[in-house]
């Protein structure tokens, strides 16, 4: 048998590395997402993915479809700048595929619902209507469980 060249192993090593490199390039060609944006370096399909998430809140326009009357009334009310879902919760919890799945009343803790915004706090803007414990205590003929909305309309609250 002929004696191989003293560098034969080196040539073969280079061959192995060359093959590995070709395999790498092939993998790269296959595995880089086809929608890749080389200028901004991201997967183009990611935009679609990010746009595809389901909506929970529909905005006031989605309420009008069924609640035109209430909306007309509400547009004159004191709380008119609030969105319906601020107090009533997300549309997705109320309607699914055009069918009502649950009531959208305020939660049972609606006294908290009122106080969360209107209880006096030092951090709230001075011109924001807030009531401290003393004001609320003027209602002391009422028991603690009594809801604010029993007397005050939540849409158009007047003192």
């Amino acid at each position: 048998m002929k004696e191989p060249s003293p560098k034969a192993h080196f040539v073969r090593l280079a061959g192995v590395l060359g093959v590995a490199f070709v395999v790498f390039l092939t993998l790269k060609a296959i595995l880089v997402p086809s929608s890749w944006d080389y200028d901004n370096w991201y997967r183009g399909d990611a935009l679609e993915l990010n746009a595809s998430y389901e909506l929970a809140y529909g905005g006031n326009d989605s309420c009008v479809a069924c609640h035109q009357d209430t909306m007309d009334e509400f547009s004159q009310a004191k709380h008119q700048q609030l969105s319906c879902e601020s107090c009533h919760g997300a549309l997705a919890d109320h309607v699914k595929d055009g069918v009502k799945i649950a009531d959208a009343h305020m939660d049972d803790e609606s006294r908290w619902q009122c106080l969360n915004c209107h209880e006096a706090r030092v951090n709230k803007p001075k011109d924001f209507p807030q009531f401290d414990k003393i004001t609320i205590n003027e209602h002391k003929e009422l028991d603690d469980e009594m809801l604010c909305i029993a007397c005050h309309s939540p849409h158009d609250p007047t003192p």
Partner: protein
Amino acid sequence: MPEIETHDTKNLIIKERSTEPDSRREFLQHLLAGTATATVLMVFGPGVNARSKYTNPADGPEHQYAYVIDINKCIGCGNCVRACKRENSVPEDYFRTWVERYVVNADGVYVDSPKGALEGFEKLNKRFRENIKISRTVPKMCNHCHNPPCIQVCPVGATFKAPEGFVLVDEDYCMGCGYCVQACPYAARFINPVEHKSDKCTWCYHRVQKGLLPACVTVCPQKARLFGDLNDAESEVSKIFEADQWMVLKPEMHTDPTCFYIGMPREVV
């Protein structure tokens, strides 16, 4: 536009000089017009330029969104935090948006954000209620920076600046290394403990693409949160931007946030 006018005026001036002295009156008129243009540039120049940093060229995307938070209006009710949690299924103990309460008194600064203000704020501890100088609630979220460090450090391109100004995460591509979480100076990012991927505010990209406002903006009872298009000179955010009374968080980080704050006390970090 005004620059071209100035240029034209100059040309006219040169022309006038070379023609009959009769047209001195006309020359003066042009001169005055030129001065007027220059004055307009001086008054509106910086604002226009500042906005042009963010607005898109004519052939670019149609919109360039920005977010404005008016601290003077925020009451700290936490509606935004709850809506964000619901809209984006944000896991417990992590927040895409949260609200902080700042109380500055004679001794120093007190800050808290119980559960990110998911349930609003309890009455402040009596200990900190003495001698209050300033107290405000400050909503926080991803600043959708113009020069975002999180995108810079993402090793694979799984987070990116989308057209129209959104900084988004590609959930199907993120490996969850967490480098972006380290790089964000605002702690707006986290590794989602359920999905094990990077998670952050998207300005409700899915809503905006359908013509809706982000959920937090929708439910804010005080209009303390505004979202709009800087490309549209008439939008609320453009007007606020040009009035130049806004501030951004951690400007020393040079991230160029496009989430602008109005009335932010200097104690806010």
